[in-house]
């Protein structure tokens, strides 16, 4: 097949320690390769990349782009799309709508148009795996995968309460196999179940789950251990208890401590870093310094930020009670969907305002995280799309991280109390291009255990983005000159040239088949679809890539 040469680019590939040196990149049959030994071998195409910055394709490790929750949000918010420019039909691309929750096609075009080639949906209810996989087939270009919600699953809770680590492991492995998922996500562990029982969720890690008797602490440690025992490529992905509640940093810190050295990923950490008291807004403050200090010292942990930016968006979460509280605060419409195999879901429109003390402090706390974490390899860029803002805000975040002056300009505009309640104004750090490359592709790929993503060494997927260097960093990252996916030029000067289907990343951990009859019995007693109708077959996968539990890939 085709041999592509990208000639004389300014390469930023932190995984190989390449920081802005000029060189060529070769892609053969969609995979990066060494320059051909035979000098007579000429490439089929040469891209003249003189003066352009080359990075690997971007990796978004935590977003909400498919599945029942996202689709419900689309259905609920026609007004959100009408206010945004639509995407027009062309002979080779589908039409689309944007706003905070774009349709599937626009999602693929816009992500790749910004230089992102991989995205993971972070919260699919087990019951709806088949739905998510179908939507994925209509999201072009991007390589995708999803995390499945297990932190409130009844079968899992029962095994945890009874100390049945083996059964828990077999169940987790079975459901990963059956659903086509890539990893395990915990959302408000135990708290959704308590919410469904009319309680207010979890007050702390040692609150017990009604009817089951286990605690959030047990759920977190058991599932984190399970993920390690199964050798999954990505650590347990944790959305802590008490999201958004003033004073919740206590819970977050306790969760980090509870892991006792186990690997774990703390997602949208910004929403979990608040000081103060739930009943007194005037005490609301940032506790990033204390959390980041603990985080910096404990290398078993990774995080993504969940940055808030100002404007209109849609909050959507597997954390049902959060949806309820937000609808109470905002007075806006509220969709909630609780499902069997136990997951929750809340959707509420939200407008983040510069002049709101709370919103502006949330913005500052997100930036504090980027600036206070010493090792960029352990922090990934995210807005928790669309919760903090749309993924389309990434170039804006890059601009803010790369310029202290720019941050100060914004700080001067927002609610005046923010400067006094956060450390942001004291933080002089400015990200370099290499550090940006780390937090937008190399680090998230490494955290996910995707050895073929996030770098430009021979053997990696041929996903390369070429940017026109620009002092306006936002413009630079908004409109790459070329985006190459698996060796094909997908975006040329902001125009979509091709729309290949992406691949699906999933895992297939081994398990004891002797554990299945007990799972089947539970399933058939308490759920409303047939046990044999639950597993998805490969017809739902399109092109897929099995990520082996030892980290190697099987395409």
């Amino acid at each position: 097949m085709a041999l592509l040469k990208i000639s004389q680019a300014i390469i930023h590939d932190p995984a190989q320690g390449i920081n802005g040196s000029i060189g060529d990149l070769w892609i053969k049959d969609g995979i990066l390769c060494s320059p051909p030994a035979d000098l007579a071998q000429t490439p089929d195409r040469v891209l003249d990349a003189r003066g352009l910055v080359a990075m690997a394709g971007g990796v978004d490790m935590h977003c909400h782009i498919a599945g029942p929750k996202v689709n419900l949000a689309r259905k609920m918010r026609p007004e959100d799309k009408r206010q945004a420019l639509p995407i027009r039909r062309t002979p080779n691309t589908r039409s689309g709508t944007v706003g905070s929750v774009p349709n599937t096609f626009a999602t693929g075009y816009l992500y790749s148009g910004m230089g992102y080639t991989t995205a993971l949906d972070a919260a699919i209810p087990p019951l709806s795996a088949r739905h998510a996989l179908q939507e994925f087939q209509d999201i072009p270009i991007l390589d995708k995968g999803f995390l499945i919600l297990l932190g409130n699953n009844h079968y899992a809770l029962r095994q945890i309460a009874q100390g049945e680590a083996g059964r828990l492991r077999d169940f987790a492995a079975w459901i990963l196999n059956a659903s086509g998922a890539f990893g395990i996500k915990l959302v408000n562990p135990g708290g959704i179940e308590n919410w469904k029982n009319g309680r207010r969720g979890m007050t702390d890690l040692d609150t017990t789950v009604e009817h089951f008797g286990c605690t959030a602490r047990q759920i977190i440690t058991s599932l984190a251990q399970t993920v390690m025992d199964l050798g999954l490529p990505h650590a347990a992905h944790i959305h802590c208890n008490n999201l958004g509640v003033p004073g919740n940093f206590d819970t977050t810190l306790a969760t980090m401590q509870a892991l006792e050295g186990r690997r774990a990923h703390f997602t949208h950490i910004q929403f979990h870093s608040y000081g103060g008291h739930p009943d007194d807004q005037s005490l609301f403050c940032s506790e990033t310094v204390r959390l980041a200090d603990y985080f910096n010292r404990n290398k078993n942990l990774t995080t993504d930020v969940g940055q808030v930016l100002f404007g209109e968006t849609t909050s959507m979460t597997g954390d049902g009670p959060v949806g309820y509280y937000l609808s109470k605060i905002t007075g806006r419409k509220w969709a909630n969907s609780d499902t069997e195999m136990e997951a929750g879901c809340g959707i509420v429109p939200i407008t983040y305002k510069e002049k709101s003390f709370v919103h502006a402090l949330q913005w500052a706390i997100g930036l504090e995280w980027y600036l206070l974490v010493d090792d960029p390899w352990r922090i990934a860029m995210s807005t928790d799309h669309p919760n903090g803002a749309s993924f389309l805000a990434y170039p804006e975040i890059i601009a803010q991280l790369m310029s202290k002056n720019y941050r100060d300009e914004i700080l001067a505009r927002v609610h005046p109390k923010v400067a006094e309640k956060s450390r942001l104004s004291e933080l002089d750090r400015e990200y370099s291009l290499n550090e940006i490359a780390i937090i937008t592709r190399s680090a998230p790929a490494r955290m996910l255990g995707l050895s073929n993503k996030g770098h430009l060494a021979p053997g990696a997927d041929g996903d390369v983005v070429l940017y026109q260097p620009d002092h306006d960093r936002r413009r630079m990252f908004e409109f790459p000159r070329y985006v190459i996916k698996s060796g094909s030029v997908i975006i040329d000067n902001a125009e979509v040239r091709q729309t290949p289907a992406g691949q699906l990343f999933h895992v297939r951990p081994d398990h004891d088949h002797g554990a299945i009859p007990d799972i089947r019995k539970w399933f058939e007693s308490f759920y409303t679809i047939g046990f044999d109708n639950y597993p998805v077959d490969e017809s739902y996968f399109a092109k897929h890539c099995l990520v082996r539990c030892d980290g190697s890939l099987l395409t």
Partner: protein
Amino acid sequence: MASAPIPTLTMAYPNRICNQCGCVCDDIVLTVEAGTITHAEHACDKGRAWFLANHSYSAEGPKAWVKGQPFSLTAAIDTAAEILFHARYPLIFGLADLPCEAQRQAVSVADRVGACLDTTLSDEHGAFDAAFQEVGEVTCSLGEVKNRADLVIFWGTDPVTSHPRHGERFSLEAKGLFTPRGRADRFVVVVDVEETATAKQADLFLKIQKDCDFEVLWALRGLVRGVPLRESMQKQTGIEDKVLLEFSNRMKGCRFGILFFGPGLCATRGRQRNAEAALRLVKDLNDFTRFYAKPMSGPGNVSGAENVVCWQTGYPPSVHFGQGFPRYNLAEYSAKEVLSRGEADAAMMVAYDPKTPFSPAACKRLSSLPTILLTSHTENQLPLEIGFRPTVIILTALYGICEAGTVFRMDDTPLPLRPVLSSTRPFALDVLTNLEKRIQELQTQRHVAMKNEQGPR
């Protein structure tokens, strides 16, 4: 190689799916003997009638007609492509009786030709969608009802008739984790204008006056929030004030309540405002306990169509691609409205279902247009008793029985269809895929011709 013998064995196929109502029961065991379904174990009467009907349409005979004449499938698809290609305002509607895979392809065709796209000719879904976009909805999957619900309300819906196994599987007798005694662990209320079959099984039946659903719901909202009635509503609603108050307290006091509502609410006076009142009442109740709402959807893959149109366009059905991108307007772009205004210059109905017949107004407009009809519900002969004569008719394989794919249950739970019979008819998915390919060819030809006309620059 010797040809395989014709199977005369009796084959049993477990875990098959019935799509005759929103319950989408997936525990049906089908027995097939000599190419015919002879038993449908676990199916209700409705389901059984469907499965046991004669699906072995003759392999002989035409699969497609153009202007009443038998045509080859390819030629019929060519004609259909010409119709849609030349139309300036095509209408594509139906979709409900298809697997999601074919629905996705139908939306793709609509996008390519700039069509107005809608699901059915009914506007019941529209009333709910409008209310949903105003209020949101607190809802849950049917398994949550089975495991947790101790108060079940059916409002303007009679599932015993319309969704026969709803009670047994989810809402009445179903035994769940926190409802181990099934029916004994639930209190069941029916609100309707007449005593339905479901009302006969209820613990409390509230017979309300016709067309006062909104008033009753709004009064309940007030009572739930502790606002007493200013004057008696008994005369207007037919319900004693005391009963209404008790009902509101029962809702606040339950552990997990669910309000199922149907056409009696969404298709009567008040329409979207009734649905809105129901959704608001349920939302309010979450200040006291967990309470959920769920509209009872009709037969076929209606939920699948809603979901597919939504993820492919960003909007639920009633979408117009005429400007080259999706626009959404429930009233303006619904198939029923478009036809009743005498609009559209061509129409394609994908998956006609005789259970939802056309209105006279729709037939009148459709009679005057070039029309394309894809259907699996008929023998291999003309004429079709549908009220107008489609220009192109293509017979497709029955989904669920002959065509594989995905369907969504009324609570948006996706399930896999696995066929048990083969068919000599084409799959709707393949017909739509080839149709789009043909339209694309025509568009490319036109593009090339226009370029040549312009000449070199």
